[in-house]
C-alpha cells in the first residue's frame, strides 16, 4: 500500500494529490520525442500514427487493469464499436472527423456501460472469459450484419473531411499522426486528472483490497462500472481514430489478437502509471518491425520467447529497473498490487 494513503491530516493528503498530478521531467521528454518524431522521421508517419492509436488503446486497458485491477482480454470489443461507429458516421452522416470521434466515444461508452455489469462478479478467470465472450459476440454481429457493416469484406467507402475544416488528411499520414498524437495527449491529460483524483485513489483501494475498500465506505460496484465505462470510451476513441486515419474498417478490429497484443504491450510498458501504453506500444511495434523483417514468418516465436523470459526473470523487476533508468522513478510505478493480492506467500 502506498504510504501516503495511511497519512492523516488534510494538508498532507492534498500535497500527495498535488504531487500525483504534477508533470515530471520524464513525461516532458516522452512528449518531446513524440513531437520531434513528426519532423525527424517524415517517412514513418503512418507507423507513428499507428503507434499513437495503439498507445491510446493500451491506455484504456491500463485504466481498468492497472488502476482498478480488472483483468480483460476483451478490450477489442470497444475498439471495434468505436471503429465501426466512426466509419458509419463518415459514410451516412458527416465526414467531419471530430464529430465522428465524439459519436464513436458515446457509442463505445454506451456498450461499455451496458457490459460493465458483466465483469462485476466472479474471479479473474470468469472476467477473462466474459470479456472474450462479449468481444466474440460483437464480432459475430458485425460479421452477420452484412447490410450495415459489409461483413467479411469490411466497411468500404469511408471518406474523411479536413480536420477542423482546415487541414486535409494526406497520403503520408502526417495529418493522421498529428491528429492521433493530439488526441492521445488529451487522453493522457484527462486520464491523469482521473487517476489523480479521489475517485482514482478509491479505484486503487478497490484494486488492492476490495473487501476493505467497501468496508471504508467506497461504493465498489459503482466505481468499477464508472471506470469500465471510461475505459471503453478511450478504447472506442482509439478505434475511431484507426477507422478515420486508415479509412477502412474490417472484422479484425474485434480480433482476439488485438486484445492479447494490448495486454502484452501494457505488460512490456508496465501497468499503473499511464505511460506504459506509449512505451509498450513503441517497444512492441519496434520489436515487431525488426523481427518481422528478419524472419517474417516466425517472428511470433521470438515474441513468445521474450514473454517467457520476461515472466521467468520477473516482469516487475525488469520493468522497474528500466523505468528507474529512464527516470520515471518508483514513485509513479505502483507495486503490482493486484498480483500480490492473487498470489500466495512463498
Amino acid at each position, binding site marked *: 500500500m502506498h504510504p501516503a494513503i495511511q497519512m492523516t491530516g488534510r494538508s498532507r493528503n492534498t500535497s500527495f494529490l498535488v504531487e500525483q498530478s504534477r508533470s515530471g521531467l520524464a513525461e516532458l521528454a516522452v512528449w518531446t520525442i513524440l513531437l520531434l518524431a513528426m519532423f525527424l522521421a517524415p517517412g514513418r508517419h503512418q507507423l507513428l500514427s499507428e503507434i499513437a492509436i495503439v498507445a491510446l488503446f493500451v491506455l484504456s486497458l491500463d485504466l481498468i487493469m492497472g488502476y482498478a485491477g480488472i*483483468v480483460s482480454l476483451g478490450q477489442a470489443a470497444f475498439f471495434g464499436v468505436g471503429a465501426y461507429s466512426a466509419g458509419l458516421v463518415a459514410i451516412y452522416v458527416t465526414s467531419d472527423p471530430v464529430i465522428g470521434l465524439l459519436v464513436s466515444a458515446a457509442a463505445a461508452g454506451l456498450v461499455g456501460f451496458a457490459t460493465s455489469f*458483466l465483469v462485476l*462478479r*466472479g*474471479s*479473474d*478467470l*470468469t472476467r*477473462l*472469459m*466474459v470479456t*472474450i*465472450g*462479449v468481444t*466474440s*459476440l460483437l464480432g*459475430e454481429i458485425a460479421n*452477420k450484419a452484412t447490410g450495415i457493416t459489409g461483413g467479411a469484406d469490411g466497411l468500404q467507402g469511408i471518406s474523411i473531411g479536413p480536420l477542423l475544416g482546415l487541414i486535409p488528411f494526406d497520403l503520408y499520414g502526417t495529418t493522421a499522426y498529428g491528429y492521433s498524437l493530439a488526441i492521445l495527449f488529451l487522453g493522457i491529460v484527462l486520464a491523469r486528472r482521473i487517476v489523480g483524483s479521489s475517485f482514482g485513489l478509491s479505484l486503487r483501494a478497490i484494486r488492492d483490497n476490495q473487501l476493505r475498500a467497501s468496508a471504508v465506505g467506497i461504493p465498489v460496484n459503482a466505481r468499477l462500472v464508472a471506470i469500465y465505462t471510461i475505459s471503453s470510451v478511450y478504447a472506442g476513441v482509439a478505434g475511431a481514430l484507426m477507422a478515420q486515419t486508415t479509412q477502412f474498417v474490417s472484422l479484425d478490429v474485434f480480433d*482476439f489478437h488485438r486484445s*492479447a497484443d494490448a*495486454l*502484452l504491450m501494457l*505488460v512490456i510498458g508496465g501497468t499503473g502509471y499511464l505511460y506504459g501504453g506509449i512505451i509498450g506500444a513503441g517497444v512492441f511495434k519496434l520489436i515487431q518491425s525488426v523481427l518481422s523483417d528478419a524472419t517474417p*514468418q*516466425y*517472428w*511470433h*516465436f521470438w*515474441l*513468445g*520467447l*521474450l*514473454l*517467457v523470459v*520476461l*515472466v*521467468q526473470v520477473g*516482469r516487475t523487476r525488469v520493468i522497474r529497473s528500466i523505468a528507474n533508468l529512464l527516470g520515471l522513478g518508483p514513485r509513479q510505478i505502483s507495486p*503490482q498490487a*493486484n*498480483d*500480490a*493480492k*492473487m*498470489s*500466495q*506467500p*512463498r
Partner: protein
Amino acid sequence: MLTILFDGVAYGMLLFVLACGLAVTLGLMNFVNLAHGAFAMTGGYVTTVLLNDWHVPFLMALPIAFLATAMLGLLLERTLYVRLYTCGHLDQVLFSIGIVFMSVAAVTYFMGSQQQSFQLPAFLQGRFELELLSVGRYRALVVAMGVAILIILQVILMKTSFGSRLRAAVDDRRVARGLGISVGPIFSLTFAIGSGLAGLGGALGVEIVGLDPNFPLKFMIYFLIVVTVGGTSGLIGPFLASLLLGIADVAGKYYLPDTGSFAIYTLMIVVLLMRPQGLLSKAQ
C-alpha cells in the same frame, strides 16, 4: 436427429479428453495455462508422424502420443512452470501465451502450415447402421475412451491415496507440505498426466477437428469455456460442460448455420452470470 446428437456427444467427448487436463491444472491447481492446446497439438503431430512416416499401427500410436506429450509436459513443468505456481494470474497468462506463440511458430517451421491428416485403419472406418441412428466407428471409439478416462480419473482422484494427497496439496500446499506430503512431485506428475491427456486428445482429434499449427489458438477458447462453465471443483462439471458444448456446437452448425457460434458465446455468458463459479459448484 439422433445421428446429430451422437456426433455432438462424440465431439463433446473429444473436447473432454482435450480439456480434462486443463480442468486439473486450471481447475484444481489454479494455474491459468493457456498453452494447454500446445500440448494437444504436440500429441496430434506425434501421431501423424508416427503413422505417416514410421507406419506405426494407430492403436499403438495413441499411447506413444500420450507418453511423449506427458514427458514434454514434465520437462516444461520442472524447468519453467514450477516457478510460476506462486505468481499472479497475469504472469501465468503472459507466460503461457508466450509458450503458445513459440509452439505455433516452431511447428510451422518444422512441419509446415498445411493441414495434417492420416489414414485410419480399416476397422475404424465406416459406420454401424442401427435402426434409428448411424454411428461412426471412430466416433464410437472416441466416446468410449472419453467415458473410460472420466471414470479412471474420477477413481484416481477420489479413491486413491495419490488423489487425496493431490486434493490436500491443492487446498493448502503449506499445510500439506507440513504433513509430509511432497507437493512438488505430485504437481509434476499431475501436470504430466494432464499434458499427456491433452496429447491423446490432440491425436484423437486430428480425424474430427483437423490439425494445423494454429490449433492452440483456435481451441484455446473452447478449452477455457469447458473449464470455466464446468466449474473448478471436480471433473463431473467439465464433463457435462464438454457434452453441452459439443452438442450445442454440432447442432447449432447443423440447424442454424448462421448463428452457430453465437449460441455458444451467449450460453457461456449466461451460465457465467448465473453461476460465476461454474455449473455444479455451490453458490458462494
